[in-house]
């Protein structure tokens, strides 16, 4: 069984959803499409958890040298993250989206979006990656604008579409130049060709284009402006997907292109690091003045992407200088933070979705006290907030510490000392506002806000448990994350 079977399953079940939706509506079972989605994602999760590492040619008989797929520790971690969050969101949607129009289309788009993200993580070819990337992006635009009868989703979706498509086209242009230079788009062949190319100017140009191209979807500053509009406008379940995993697919594409394909070149490490610092500073400062809880969480997602980019930049710089220990720490810290933020922010968007479902308002003052009256949602969101704040025993602390450790290895460089100071200041600021939000949610008893249905708190509780399990099994997780980081950079750690 290979990665092509996982993708075939996801695409095949998307056809089944159309049939299930039609039949279900005729027979009065409105949730039929949802159940098919949950079943498909459960199977995909089970299949992708046991994929053996290696390279796979899905169409060996045709002799077409493209569409190669790969499985290594990094792509396995990312695809597991994508399918598991997709599954929990699908379960949550069963109740949350109940009674909405066009549910068949909703589940179809959700499943195709997960298929696109899994494809991005599993492809071993830049053009294949681009095809899956567009599948993921187009379905994401459509899902943001899912409630098209309101003005906000349409405008936010349009803004997201224009900005992200512009980025994707720049990335595709870079891919075409790479194809021109090397004559292939296969990751491993490109890696060996670029290692012997010896033309730093071309590598810098390509790295810049790819960073911009994939970075728009990953919401790096100053191209993050679509995100705080798109996340609040989308249904909360889709906000959880966008913030939890879609922007992480952008991070994966940047990491794969810059760390694996292109050879280490001076200057790019600083670029990544300082773009990351700018992103987290902008995100944190903008989050402080938000009164809309979903906008608040969206800006904090921007900030967290910044931390991840700082970790990657530190790893890149250390790798260039031959300091493998710190290079692995930086990139592994970034990957651990990807996992932490995907679980934590997915959890928080699902929790606020439940609270908004009951209270019918997105303003933080209206949500005060709902942490007390909605017990399970409240406790789950508390765990998520503490995890993202980086309160020591939780995993969110260790990922930031690993990134700081990667930076600390290069401390003799004044530019990096400055970066470390800004990074720590940002982490402290973020911890402050997460705790502040937590206190407001629990301050006084809200009236009449009861707990939501088990189909909605179940996924929340599962994600909160996942945050705790990640902390308890940290030593095992770190082994996988370190293996993933060395696979992503192609070094033996």
């Amino acid at each position: 069984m290979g990665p092509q079977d996982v993708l075939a399953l996801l695409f095949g079940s998307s056809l089944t959803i159309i049939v299930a939706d039609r039949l279900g509506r005729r027979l009065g079972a409105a949730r039929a499409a949802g159940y098919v989605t949950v079943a498909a994602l459960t199977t995909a999760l089970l299949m992708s958890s046991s994929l053996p590492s290696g390279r796979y040619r899905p169409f060996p008989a045709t002799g077409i040298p493209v569409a190669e797929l790969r499985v290594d520790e990094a792509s396995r971690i990312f695809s597991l993250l994508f399918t598991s969050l997709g599954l929990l969101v699908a379960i949550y949607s069963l109740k949350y989206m109940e009674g909405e129009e066009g549910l068949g289309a909703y589940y179809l788009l959700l499943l195709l979006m997960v298929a696109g993200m899994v494809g991005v993580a599993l492809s071993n070819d830049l053009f294949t990656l681009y095809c899956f990337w567009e599948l993921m992006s187009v379905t994401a635009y459509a899902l943001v604008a899912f409630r098209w009868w309101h003005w906000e989703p349409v405008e936010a979706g349009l803004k997201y579409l224009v900005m992200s498509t512009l980025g994707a086209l720049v990335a595709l242009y870079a891919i075409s130049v790479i194809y021109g230079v090397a004559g292939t788009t296969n990751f491993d062949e490109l890696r060996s060709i670029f290692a012997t190319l010896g033309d730093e100017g071309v590598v810098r140009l390509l790295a810049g284009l790819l960073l911009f191209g994939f970075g728009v979807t990953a919401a790096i500053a100053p191209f993050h402006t679509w995100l705080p509009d798109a996340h609040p406008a989308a249904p909360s379940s889709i906000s959880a997907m966008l913030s939890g995993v879609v922007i992480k697919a952008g991070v994966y594409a940047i990491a794969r292109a810059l760390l694996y394909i292109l050879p280490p070149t001076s200057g790019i490490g600083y670029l990544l690091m300082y773009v990351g610092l700018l992103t987290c500073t902008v995100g944190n400062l903008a989050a402080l003045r938000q009164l809309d809880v979903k906008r608040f969480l969206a800006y904090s997602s921007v900030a967290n992407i910044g931390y991840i980019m700082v970790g990657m930049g530190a790893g890149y710089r250390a790798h260039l200088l031959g300091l493998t220990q710190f290079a692995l720490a930086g990139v592994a810290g970034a990957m651990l933070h990807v996992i932490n933020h995907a679980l934590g922010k997915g959890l928080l968007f699902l929790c606020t979705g439940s609270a908004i479902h009951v209270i019918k308002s997105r303003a933080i003052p209206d949500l005060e006290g709902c942490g007390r009256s909605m017990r399970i949602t409240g406790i789950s969101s508390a765990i998520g907030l503490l995890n993202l704040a980086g309160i020591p025993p939780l995993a969110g602390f260790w990922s930031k510490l690993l990134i700081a450790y990667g930076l600390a290895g290069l401390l003799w460089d004044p530019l990096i000392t400055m970066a470390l100071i800004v990074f720590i200041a940002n982490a402290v600021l973020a911890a402050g506002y997460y705790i502040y939000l937590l206190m407001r949610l629990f301050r006084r008893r809200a009236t009449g806000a009861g707990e939501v249905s088990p189909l909605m708190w179940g996924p929340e509780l599962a994600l909160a448990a996942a945050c705790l399990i990640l902390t308890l099994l940290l030593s095992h997780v770190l082994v996988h994350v370190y293996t993933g980081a060395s696979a992503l950079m192609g070094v033996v750690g």
Partner: protein
Amino acid sequence: MSLLNAYSVAAAALIAVGAYCVASKRNLIKVVMGIEIMTTAVNLNFIAMGLRGGVLDPLASMYAAVSMAIGAAVAALALALIVQAYRHYGTLDSSKMSRLRW
């Protein structure tokens, strides 16, 4: 370098035209036209990059064909959203629908 032929220069120029169009135009239809120009430019660049000694690598034409199909999907969705935006606002001017600050 052999990569710099008339086609790849034209493609780079078209990319610049398209990016300018997306960045500066207020009319949403013109923004979509800018995106389409950029898609065409990238396709042209794939063909330019696939020319090796006067012979076209079949891989390059396949890339361009697949990219056209993807571009069509994006354009269709963009136009569908623009129709909805026009119904809400009665205008195609993006500066007049800036309730979310473009």
